[in-house]
């Protein structure tokens, strides 16, 4: 089955050890931070520790990973000018795009889950599975991964220097908008992901809420967040598929 091959080959490509090294470092960095946290501030509870480190680090790393892996779906092929090999094969373009998107999202979700597990290990040591927030976090990260990837995929198809725009979104928009007054926070993916994670720090107030980027009360329910992210991803993917199917990819002589 061509679909299965597209997915597994892309997965294998994205999971090459060299590509994973930065994420391993980030994951262990998160664990290290969780480990030293009690030394820096002995007054915080394990739940707070875990919640703050995942909110400040892992959930933001998710957006960073999405930006980097998503640009590898098509932009990298265009930059390397290898896109011609895959576009002249009897594989419908939408299928190619969708399976590679699935693979990239899976890897991003794995990167996030890996980070969350390591932070949990850093906080709870051997009893890391007793962390009540962990499962919800992993689910939230999967949703976040698929949503961010869908968004960045479209961006990467529409513009040449997608990486900068994606980073700007991930760390500009996603940091500022959740803290804006009124209902603006509803316009960020991060607020929805945090609504699914249901961290005690994500409901507004406290130092953790500053860290998690949600100074406002997050009134998004988990159900609404799931639905919003699903609809958003579906729409973005549909637009991406239409665009990719009709766009002409001519090798750029000035590709950078």
């Amino acid at each position, binding site marked *: 089955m061509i679909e299965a091959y597209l997915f597994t080959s892309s997965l294998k490509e994205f999971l090459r050890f060299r590509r994973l090294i930065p994420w391993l470092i980030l994951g262990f960095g998160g664990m290290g931070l969780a480990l030293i946290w009690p030394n820096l501030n002995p007054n915080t509870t394990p739940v707070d520790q875990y919640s703050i480190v995942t909110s400040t680090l892992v959930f933001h790393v998710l957006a960073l990973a999405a930006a980097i892996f998503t640009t590898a779906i098509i932009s990298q092929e265009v930059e390397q000018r*290898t896109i011609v090999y*895959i576009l*002249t094969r009897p*594989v419908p*373009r939408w299928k190619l795009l969708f399976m590679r998107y699935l693979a990239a999202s899976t890897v991003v979700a794995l990167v996030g889950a890996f980070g969350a597990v390591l932070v949990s290990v850093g906080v709870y040591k051997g009893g890391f599975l007793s962390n009540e927030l962990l499962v919800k976090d992993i689910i939230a990260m999967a949703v976040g991964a698929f949503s961010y990837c869908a968004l960045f995929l479209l961006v990467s198809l529409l513009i040449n220097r997608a990486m900068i725009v994606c980073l700007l979104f991930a760390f500009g928009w996603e940091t500022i908008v959740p803290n804006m007054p009124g209902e603006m926070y509803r316009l960020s993916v991060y607020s929805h992901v945090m609504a699914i994670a249901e961290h005690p720090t994500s409901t507004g107030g406290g130092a953790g809420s500053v860290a998690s980027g949600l100074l406002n009360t997050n009134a998004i329910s988990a159900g609404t967040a799931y639905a919003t992210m699903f609809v958003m991803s579906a729409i973005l993917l549909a637009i991406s598929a239409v665009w990719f*199917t009709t766009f002409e990819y001519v090798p750029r002589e000035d590709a950078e």
Partner: protein
Amino acid sequence: MIQLERCSRWYGQVIGLNDVTCTIGPGLTALLGMNGAGKSTMMRLITGQIRPTTGKIEVFGMEPFSNSQVYRRLGYCPEIDNFYEHMTGRQFVYHLARLAEFTGPDASKRTEEVLEMVGMSDRAGRKIAGYSKGMRQRIKLAQAMLHNPEIVLLDEPLNGLDPVGRHEYIQLLHQLAEQGKIILVSSHILYEVEQMTSALLLLHRGRLLATGDLMVIRSLIDKHPHQIRIETSEPRKAASLLAGLPNVVSLSFAPGGEALQIEVRDPNAFYDSLTEISLKEGLALHGLSSPDNNLESVFKYLVEA
């Protein structure tokens, strides 16, 4: 069968291909033109990477843009020298075989076959990053031949190949053409094309200047009489005998005095007369050549026109 009907392609203000109509059938056809003539644009149109701005293009009666049915029967060897450098040659070909709808075992088998065919079996285990230009060209050809396509398009395939490699490559193309496949090879090197085929598509500044057999095209260029060089120990005698022939336009003695240069209108009629005269008058001929009866001259004449 590839058919272009009044096909034009614009890139913004620049025209890549201008109102081209032609049909490309089985056999080896060369797409010839200088850099920027529109060869790659035509290749991209036929391989469905881009769409014509105006006009129509059909491959097997279908529009090729993003058309899987066309890609099942078409192999393309692009001009670019870009690969997945971290892969080995074998992995690269296998990967593209899987994308060409081969199952795992079939893809492995077919990969070995095409690697053998292009003479890369023993070196396919190495990473592409370490390949020479010639090896890269062979790997590109291998991936184009994977699914045994009916149409093979090769964009500047001989770039970087050594003389032996070129010879082998051209032989391979001839074999494929003999199997009834449609082979279209683009090149801007006249010498290369001359060795490959006499069936031409001549592009210049986006327009199709000429199409068909080289000799037929040459014979149709009336403005430039054919040059014939006759090597003989009696050039003066030869001149006096040949000057009266109806097709002869001009005569001159080559420097050194052992050859005669003649310009004629109808070379075939002239050769018939020449044979007759030399036998009848006992004229000793040491050599006969036609210096402008080649692709370079044809190209030059057409472009100048």
